[in-house]
Each structure stands twice: as C-alpha cells, then as structure tokens.
C-alpha cells in the first residue's frame, strides 16, 4: 500500500501541498484530476524523491515504511515509478545504454544478478514492439529530438521493463494522438492487476475511457478535496472545478 499522510510541502518558502491525504491500494487504479497549479506534479515528484522540496509535515509510507529518507534511486528499486509529465532529454546517452543501466541498477539493489545481453535485448524488443516503438529509436540518445508522443511512449516502455509495484503517470496522455493514446493505454492496462497500484494524473476524461479508474480524487490547492467513483470524472467534465476550488 502507498499511503500519503497529511503531507505539507513547500518550495522556496511557498506552500504547495497542504495536508494531503491519499491511499493507493495494491491492484488499485486511482485517478487524480485537478486544476493547473494545484500541485499534482509536485506530489508525483515528492513521492519519487526529488530533492528540491521541503516536507514540513506528514509522511509517505510504502507498505507501512516511511520512504522520506530514501534517495530517488532507492525508491525506484523499492518499486516506485514516475512517468514524467515532461521526460528529460539526455544527450549523448543512447536509449539502450540507459535502459540497461536502469534495469541492472535496480536488479543490483535488490540483490539480483545482471541481465544477460540476450535476455535484455529480448525484453526490450518485445516491450518496444507492443508500444509501437521503432527499434531505431532505441539507438538514439534518450529522448533527444523525440516528439512529445514518442517521449511518452518511452516512459511507458521504461515502466513495463522496470516492473514497478506503484506507478505514477503524470499527464501521460498529453501530447498523444488518438492512436497513440490507445496504444499507450493498452500498455498501461497490460500492467494492471498483479497487485500493482497506479496513480493516473490527467486533465481529461478521454484517458479514463481507456484506463478505467477504481477511484477518482479531485485535488485543489494542494489537497484532496473529494474522492469518488469513476463517475466523478464525468461530473467534472460537465461542471468544471469551480465548486471544489472555492470549497478548498
């Protein structure tokens, strides 16, 4: 279980998360919707272990253990994966080299042996094919010059290869065309179940037609202001955030 308790977060003295409570159960797909600037990406960075933030109160627990003292790489090895809203470009590092380094680093942290080159290639080729990623792209420097949609697909490719316990998808649908949205959603759905928890951050009902959530949370001004079933997303689509923002 991934549990966020009364989380207060500041950056440069500016309060961004304001007593946020959230639970993601194993096997559950939770969606977060909320207006621009409400703190959704901040929440995802804080869970993943980005250092710029000051946590003034609260805790984040993974299976009952606080992860606040863990480095980002330790959290990754413990099973947390963040698909970035804006994936970074890494010039000079071939995508393949990066994938191998990431997979082996996590295996090492868990006390497992390195993947053989054959097993690695097979895993990457298989996953790339499912996501419609051209193998030539894997030879290019990571994300450099990739289109918005290609970057998002690359995030899902990494997610499927790294086999995390909890996935946070920050606006993975933005920048995707209709076909890519379907392919990426299928990729995500294939990873559903098996006790894997997911937190899907999105602005659009459209994504939730493909990845049907178990619960929907509405976030405003740095906290969860309402939770409900998938119908909550439909209601938002109609009425917007105004009522919730005022109440927050």
């Amino acid at each position, binding site marked *: 279980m991934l549990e966020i308790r009364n989380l207060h977060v500041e950056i440069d003295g500016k309060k961004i998360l304001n007593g946020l409570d959230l639970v993601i159960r194993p096997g559950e797909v939770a969606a977060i919707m909320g207006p621009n600037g409400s703190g959704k990406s901040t929440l995802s960075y804080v869970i993943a272990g980005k250092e*710029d933030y000051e946590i003034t109160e609260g805790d984040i627990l993974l299976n009952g253990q606080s992860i606040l003292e863990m480095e980002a790489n330790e959290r990754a090895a413990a099973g947390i994966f963040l698909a970035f809203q804006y994936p*970074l470009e890494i010039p000079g590092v071939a995508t393949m080299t990066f994938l191998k380094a990431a997979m082996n680093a996590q295996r090492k942290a868990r006390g497992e042996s390195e993947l053989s080159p054959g097993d690695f290639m097979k895993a990457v080729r298989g996953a790339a094919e499912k996501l419609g990623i051209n193998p030539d792209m894997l030879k290019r420097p990571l994300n450099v010059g990739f289109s918005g949609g290609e970057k998002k697909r690359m995030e899902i490719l990494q997610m499927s290869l790294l086999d995390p316990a909890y996935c946070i998808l920050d606006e993975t649908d933005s920048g995707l065309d209709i076909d890519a949205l379907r392919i990426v959603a299928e990729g995500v759905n294939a990873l559903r179940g098996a006790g894997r928890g997911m937190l899907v951050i999105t602005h659009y009902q459209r994504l939730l037609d493909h990845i049907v959530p178990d619960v929907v949370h509405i976030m405003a001004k740095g906290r969860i202001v309402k939770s409900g079933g998938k119908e909550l997303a439909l209601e938002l689509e109609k009425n917007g955030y105004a009522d919730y923002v005022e109440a927050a």
Partner: protein
Amino acid sequence: MANVLPMRTPAETALIERFKAEQSSLPGAVEARAEAFARFEKSGLPSRRVEAYHYTDLRNLMREAAPAITARPEPRAPEKHHLLIENGVYLGGDAPEGILVLPLAEALREGRVALGAAMGAASDIVVDLNTALCRDGIYVRVDTVVEAPLFIGFAETLGNAASVMPRVVVEVAAGAALTLVELHAGPDGIAYQKNAVVELILGDGAKVEHIRINEGGDKALMLSTLAVKLGAEAELMSLGLVSGGEVSRHQVFVTYAGENAKIDLRGATMIKGRQHADNTLVVDHAVPNGVSRELFRNVIDDEAQGVFQGRIIVRPHAQKTDGQMASNAVLLSDGAGMANKPELEIFADDVVCAHGATSGALDENQLFYLMARGLPRSEAEALLVEAFLGETLDAVSNDGLREVLAERISRWLEARAR
C-alpha cells in the same frame, strides 16, 4: 636606473647555467638554440603578469628546475608500431610501413630538420626552453597515406625529480596522411618536470589525426606544445585527453600557411584533487578561407582547477575564415574551478567566427530523471559525464582508438566512484 627584471628565481638561474654548460654538446640547430635561449634569458619564466600565463604562473609553479638526466635507459624490445622516448631519450622502435623515422639528434646534426619551423609568428618561452635545451627526440617523415596509427610513447621511469625535454618533428608531405598517438605516462609521487614539444608540418592536402594522452604522474609538471603549420587544403584533427600531472599545460599553436585548410582541435580533461590543467590555443588564420573548430570539455572534481584560453587570430587579408570555438566545463564539486578565456582577434571583415564558454554543475533535473529510474547518484553522474566528454571523441575516425579513449574516460569515472 630602472630595475626592469625581477630577481632571477633558482629555476631561472639553473636553466641558464644548464644551457651554458651543455651548449657545446647539444646536437645541431646552433642558431635557433642561441636565439631561443636569448629570449628566455631576457624574459625569464613567465609569471601571471604575462597574459598568456595569467592562470598558470610558471615562474611561481616552477621555483626550482629539476636537474637534467644523464643516465641512459636500458633499450627495450619495441612494440609493433610504437616508438619509445624514455626519460627524454629516444630508444628506437617500430613504425608502420611508409614512415621514415630518425633520431632527432641525428637529423639535427645533419641539418635535415630545423627547430621551430611550425611555430609561425608565435613565440613562447616554454617552446624556447625546449628549443634551447632539447637533446633528443624523433624526426618523422611521411610521404604516403599510412593507415595504421603510429604510437609514440613518452615514458618517464624516473626514481627522482628530473627534467626532460623531448622534441618530435613530424613532416607529412603533400597528399600524405598519418594518425599519430602520443602517450605520456610517468610515476606518481615524483615531482618531475616535462617540457615536450611536437611540431607538425602538413604539406598541401595532407591529413593528420593526432591524439595525445596525458597520464603523467600525480606530482609532475607537464608542459607540452603542439605546433602546427598547415599547407593548402591540409586537414588536422587533434584531440588531447588529460588526466595526469599535478600541473599541466597543453598549448597548441596553429598557423595557416595555405588556403582552405581545416582544423578540428578537441580536448577532454578530467581532473581531481588539487590538479591544475591548462589548455591554451593560438590559432592564426594568416591566409583566407581557413576553417577551425575547437571543442574543449573539462570535468573538474574536488579542488581542481581548469583553464581554457583560446585565441583565434584572423589577419587582415584572411577573408572567409570560419572559426567556431566552444569550451564547456562541468564542475563536480563546490571547490572545483574553471577559467575560460576565449579571444577573437579579427582584423578581416568577411568572416564567420563565434565562441561559447559554459561552466557549471551537472543538470539536477537530468540527474533526478536517471535516479528515478534506479541509478545511484554516482552512476547517474558518471553516465552524464561520459556523455559530455564522449562528444569530443566523435572526431576520432579509428574505432579501436576511440574505444581506447572511451575506456580511459570510464576508468577515471570508476576510480572516482570508488
């Protein structure tokens, strides 16, 4: 009476005495030596007040001159395509077919070769010292296209601080081609002083790839110079990989003697501890239509200090010169420093010249991205640094050599992670 010269340092006095004692026994180049010595005697070792040495105050860094070596090293069985200069003495070796190799002393005595022919209008005291005092080295002449790389090992196997001043003169005839690799290595813990000069004279249309690896000892003062004269349409790529020496300064002087020549100068410097590494370039476009590219990358850890000085001169009639220079540094610690001094001296009006210099820490957002995928910080840093330095290797056309260089970069990073 005005006292213009500061007091001589012990090093200056020792070098003057050394020249006077050795002058009569030095091979050939009598006039060139005397002139070079006169310049040194007049100005002494350059201090920070001399602009070109502002960041590397040689007068201060070299208070004492280490003694010359007299003992002759044992000859060794040559490795394939390797020539060996040990402790400043040429020990022979093996060269690929198509390359003529002579001991420099012999070539000088016979008057086959002059000293300083590749320096053009440039003048430099470190080169002058080598010219005055060099005793041995190699003369290389290439008249055809030679594919196999020629390696020159400059090995120091000294047991105590000593001074070595080897010189290599390479002539690549019109239309000929050569790949030349210099390997400089020496013992840690010994404050030896090295002043190596390589002159490269490229005939019209000649092509040279030159790689220099500085893995000198950790107490060494490593001074080195590459002086290049380019014929028309000649092409040179020169890459310097620096990880050795307590203080190092690598200078490159390039003179365009013919039109449409091209150079691509590159440097990959990795320093740590209290190392100081200076890369200084003077590129003199004396004729029209020259092309120059410079890409210098520095990775600086701990308290180490990097220096980049790049001067591009475009003479009044050197129209259509195209020069692009970049120096970038990654500082891996708060104590690390980098001085960047690009200079364009342009006296022609129809030219395209630009330079850019950056220096700063690794990008925290990139590091976080890599760490969020499971890479520990040190591994994430190594991946980014490897990519940063790796770009300088793109210009090396020999796959095997490029791998050797990449491996040396990885090794440095592994040692750092430990």
